[in-house]
């Protein structure tokens, strides 16, 4: 009986030793394998390429100084994966705001990602509960100058019985809303190749 208990205890210890440990990934030094699906490194790379291209192109240099006001238009996920396109757009918004050249409006967008409080606080104009001098008057919202739209495309192809290639294209367009002209366009392709056993959706 005692021997059985010892063997069981040792067996449990061995099983515990084999269990995969959970770790927090250090993004600066991550040497993890690249999956065929999109991961954080792909979004970071696509966003960085877009921002670098926008800033170095000079199209965001407003004549006379100041900042452009940008609205977020539709960004379509045309991949086989469930992606929140904000993984891409939020990084771009942060970097453009940091550059001092662009500020993004939360008052209007094509994908519904506006701040609900903008309208909510205006509904309270007639409420006696709020101090009159702190109420927001009419005509304060700023019409955007630019619109950012885009699409993420995925294309799968089988190279042979054991290898498949997955191509992703991050396409973005910056449109001048005053005249409808696309003043900047960018495409970042990310091509991955791996086993047909890997799943890319």
């Amino acid at each position, binding site marked *: 009986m005692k021997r059985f208990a010892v063997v069981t205890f040792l067996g449990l210890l061995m099983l515990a030793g084999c269990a995969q440990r959970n770790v927090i990934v250090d993004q600066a030094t991550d040497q993890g394998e690249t999956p065929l699906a999109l991961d954080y490194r792909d979004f970071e790379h696509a966003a*960085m390429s877009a921002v*670098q291209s926008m*800033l*170095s192109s000079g199209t965001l*240099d407003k004549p006379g100084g100041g900042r452009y006001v940008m609205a977020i238009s539709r960004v379509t996920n045309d991949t086989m994966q469930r992606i929140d396109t904000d993984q891409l757009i939020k990084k771009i918004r*942060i970097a453009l705001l940091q*550059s*001092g050249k662009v500020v993004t409006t939360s008052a209007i967008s094509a994908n519904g990602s506006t701040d609900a409080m903008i309208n909510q606080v205006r509904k309270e104009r007639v409420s006696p509960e709020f101090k009159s001098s702190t109420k927001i008057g009419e005509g304060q919202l700023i019409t955007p100058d630019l619109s950012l739209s885009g699409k993420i495309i995925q294309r799968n192809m089988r190279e042979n019985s054991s290898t498949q290639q997955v191509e992703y294209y991050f396409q973005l367009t910056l449109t001048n809303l005053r005249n409808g002209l696309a003043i900047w366009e960018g495409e970042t392709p990310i091509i991955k190749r791996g086993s047909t056993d890997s799943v890319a959706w």
Partner: protein
Amino acid sequence: MAKVFRRTRWLLIIAAALTLGACATLPPPSIQLDPSLNGYVTIKSIHKSVSPSGLLQVEVTGKNTSDQPLYMYYQFDWLDKNGQAVPSLLAAKTRVTADRNRWFTIRGVAPSPAVTDFRLYLDERDKP
């Protein structure tokens, strides 16, 4: 006389070695090459300019002097006037490949007008 000549000869050899050592091409202090790239990568030029809206732009040209393609990462540190790093998406690691005996160019744009200087790290990565 032979003793003096022998001593002078050693002095000349040491002096020549020191002179040659001083002539070896070292990357500028703003660029840090991983030791694994020593002897394979030479930095030829660094161009810095400031855009009309005040963003620092950097273009670094190097050469892969080896007979093999080099698969590398580069990463910028963007520094403000106090020498403090300005964290940004534009300081993320980025892949760059240099074909054998070919020039390669790395371009960077500062994330904010507060940036006045940079550091660039270049490191080897595993072949795909």
